[in-house]
């Protein structure tokens, strides 16, 4: 990017897409992003195995924390969206939810400071699983033909409308749902990181100015950066919740008997 202005201490300004593609640690398979993914997987396995090694009816603090996550997903997402059928999906949703929460929160963890989900590859993997899951669940429950008919044909509509509606419904089920699922999570994390870059690096750029007033104004940039970091926590949790809730909703609609 030859057009980029390199400010004090060699900080790239303005932030660009390339800031999301860090140099490989050791080849394309061992990057900061892949290491963070393994870190998230390791942390979650250790957390759940440690807190649930010896579960008791009256839980310890750790066990209580693990159960709170499970309880939240089980009762507030799975059962809310899918009714009683949802409970058998609650374990998977809990894994999905905690994985997204942890990887999202990496975006504000010092030293990591970027969420793996700001690379669309990871949201695509998660959205694909949901996509395959709701197709499979629907086809297995109703049979493939009936499931397709059920999800494409809206009952109680005059037949010429189907010329318009069937392609829309088809697009909805086979493209819009999985794509929006992946892009929503990716875009939130991408934008969040970009905002933090703008205020943090922007602050340093202002600080490097010759003018004392411009230097002083950098304080506002840093305050904004800190506020946005807290805001990112909210977004991280919210996006995990939204992703899992929509997954539950899609799977639930596949299980439902009517459109």
């Amino acid at each position, binding site marked *: 990017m030859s057009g980029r202005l390199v400010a004090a201490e060699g900080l790239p300004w303005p932030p660009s897409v390339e800031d999301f593609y860090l140099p490989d640690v050791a080849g394309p398979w061992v990057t900061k992003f*892949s290491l963070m993914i393994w870190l998230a*997987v390791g942390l979650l396995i250790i957390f759940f195995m440690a807190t649930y090694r010896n579960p008791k009816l009256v839980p310890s603090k750790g066990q209580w924390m693990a159960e709170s996550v499970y309880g939240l997903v089980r009762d507030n997402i799975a059962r809310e969206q899918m009714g009683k059928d949802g409970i058998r999906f609650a374990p998977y949703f809990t894994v999905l939810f905690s994985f997204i929460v942890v990887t999202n929160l990496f975006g504000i963890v010092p030293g990591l400071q970027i969420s793996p989900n700001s690379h669309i*590859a990871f949201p695509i993997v998660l959205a694909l699983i949901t996509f395959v899951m709701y197709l499979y669940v629907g086809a297995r429950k109703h049979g493939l033909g009936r499931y397709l008919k059920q999800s494409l044909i809206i009952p109680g509509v005059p037949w010429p409308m189907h010329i318009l509606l069937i392609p829309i419904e088809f697009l909805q089920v086979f493209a819009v749902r999985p794509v929006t699922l992946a892009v929503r999570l990716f875009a939130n994390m991408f934008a969040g990181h970009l905002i933090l870059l703008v205020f943090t690096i922007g602050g340093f750029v202002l600080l490097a100015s010759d003018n004392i007033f411009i230097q002083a104004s950098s304080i506002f940039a840093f305050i904004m950066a800190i506020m946005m970091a807290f805001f990112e926590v909210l977004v991280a949790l919210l996006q995990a919740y939204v992703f899992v809730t929509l997954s539950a909703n899609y799977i639930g609609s596949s299980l439902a008997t009517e459109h």
Partner: protein
Amino acid sequence: MLVAAEGVEHHPLVPLWQELVIGTIAFALLCFVLLKFVMPRMEAMYQARVDAIEGGLKRAEAAQAEANQLLEQYRAQLAEVRTEAAQIRDDARADAESIRTEILAKAREESDRIIAAGRDSLAVERQTIVRELRAEVGGLAVDLASRIVGESLADEARRKGTVERFLTDLESAGAR
């Protein structure tokens, strides 16, 4: 810039295929471990806790019901005892009343009897006295008369008849 030095331009919506593979493997591993070793136990614990809480509630409800039943029972018993006590008190009062009237009646009867007896004995006494007096008065009168007249009336029977006649005359004169 190191990235720029690599000379690769990235598009944010195009995934890196290595990351797709790593993401799939890593997430699959996470799912495998947690779904196999942790989550089933968590659901089981969840159910166990629900059972425990519901069981506890049920037991508490049963205990409550039993306590209520006992309370009702005690209340009923207490009410029963109270009415019984009231009954006994009423009975005692009635008994006392009847005993009182009985005793009074007896006493009245007794007093009546005593009065009657007194009256009878008085009458008998009076008759006796009258009879004795009559005999005495007769004798005295005869004595007096014989003394006054100075002659003895030899014939007992006649003397008696005279006295009787005299006394009868006296009585009839008194009655008149």
